């Protein structure tokens, strides 16, 4: 509804001007997005879009509020997979019993995502679509070998997590396409999981983080999935470390081999505050700790 400018905005949070529109359906969202010619952003929890605008680091001309779209909601199990709607808030990820049972890496990652009040508002879909390389959930979905459900005018598709995170803040989502859900294959009861991160303070961006899962069959590891975050442009699958684990018993020796193999997996960018070799060193330490504490879901 259009109203005259009755009052000036006198506030302290000083976003640049934009047009705010609420989409009731995916179709409406796509149309509103396409109409803006690439200068629109979807708004779900808003916890990355709003601060960057408040700091005037970006100024899209249009924000499309997608929080009312029904397809983005809910957590359910169907067809051998857990479906987590994109609008599921971090606090819901933390508390949801289905997620705890079938995708425990997400439950374990959630307490590390910022702070309680942020978790009350931020959504897992928004978090994955942003693809911050220091963020916990992208690494967790990668380790879980999840699929990302995307919906666009050309239809619905499932994108393997391995194919989703392309580069620094770049995902496989096409312009205007909506990230609608995460599909996690249901794990066997015996699967082991481990998640941890090293951060200066509680809730800070991790200096390095690890998410891992593995099955143990006949005393040896099969299908190890090891992901690190805050080590590169994207969350990184540590394939050499995985190979070092697969086929061996989970033991100090195999863990040490996996730690050593990380040098092949990681090439952290130069950061004036924290040199790449230190990051690799921390990654090794943390990988060792996470692997040695892997547990099945209780």
């Amino acid at each position, binding site marked *: 509804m259009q109203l005259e400018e009755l009052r000036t*905005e006198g506030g302290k*949070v000083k976003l640049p001007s934009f047009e*705010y529109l609420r989409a009731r359906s995916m179709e409406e969202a796509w149309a509103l997005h396409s109409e803006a010619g690439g200068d629109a952003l979807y708004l779900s929890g*808003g916890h990355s879009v*709003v601060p960057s605008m408040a700091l005037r680091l970006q100024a899209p001309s249009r924000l499309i509020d997608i*929080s009312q779209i029904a397809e983005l909601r809910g957590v359910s199990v169907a067809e051998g997979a857990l479906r987590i709607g994109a609008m599921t808030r971090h606090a819901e990820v933390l508390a949801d019993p289905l997620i705890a049972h079938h995708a425990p890496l997400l439950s374990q990652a959630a307490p590390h995502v910022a702070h309680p*009040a942020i978790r009350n508002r931020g959504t897992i879909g928004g978090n994955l679509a942003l693809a911050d390389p220091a963020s916990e959930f992208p690494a967790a979905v990668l380790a879980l070998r999840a699929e990302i459900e995307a919906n666009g005018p050309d239809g619905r598709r499932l994108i393997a997590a391995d194919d989703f995170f392309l580069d620094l803040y770049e995902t496989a989502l096409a312009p205007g396409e909506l990230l609608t859900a995460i599909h996690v294959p249901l794990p066997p009861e015996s699967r082991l999981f481990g998640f941890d991160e090293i951060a200066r303070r509680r809730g800070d961006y991790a200096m390095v983080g690890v998410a891992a899962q593995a099955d143990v069959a006949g005393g040896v590891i099969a299908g190890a999935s090891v992901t690190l975050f805050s080590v590169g442009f994207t969350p990184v699958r540590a394939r050499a470390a995985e190979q070092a684990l697969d086929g061996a018993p989970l033991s100090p020796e195999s863990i040490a081999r996996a730690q050593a193999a990380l040098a092949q997996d990681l090439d952290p960018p130069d950061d004036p505050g924290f040199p790449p070799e230190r990051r690799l060193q921390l990654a090794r330490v943390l990988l060792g700790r996470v692997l040695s504490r892997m547990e099945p879901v209780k």
Partner: protein
Amino acid sequence: MKHLLSTTVNGEQVQEAVSPRTSLADFLREDMGLTGTHLGCEMGACGACLVLMDGAPVHACLVLAVQAEGCTVETIEGLTETGAAADLQARFHDRNALQCGYCTNGMLMSAQALLAANPDPSRDEIRDALSGNYCRCTGYEAIVDAIAATASDRAGRSETKTEAAQ
């Protein structure tokens, strides 16, 4: 272009024209005159602007006012009027768990939510619940003490009477 926002603030139905770029914090402070919600970092890092939105603490600096459509919002003023946090406020007072008072709103919001979810938190759990609330003055210990004491009171384990109970 302004939007007509319908929301409930501290139990009152509110209809106001707001600009999309107005944050919920500024809407509350400037339009509603509810200046107990403070702004410290404008990016969700300090916790001074926490309000309860549909019962859960959120950063009013990171929520656009237009996003509060159809929601219930409670601020420190509302909690004070209903007396919902009176015992917590009294324990903060007893323990001198505030100095300049700028973080206090956010601390109370985090504490109120923690105690609702976990009536018997450990000191570590209390500190964890405050992990996004910055206080430059107190060093946090008094705040942790005050929250622990409130939990004790609410569980009927009170050794010392609070002023609110008197």
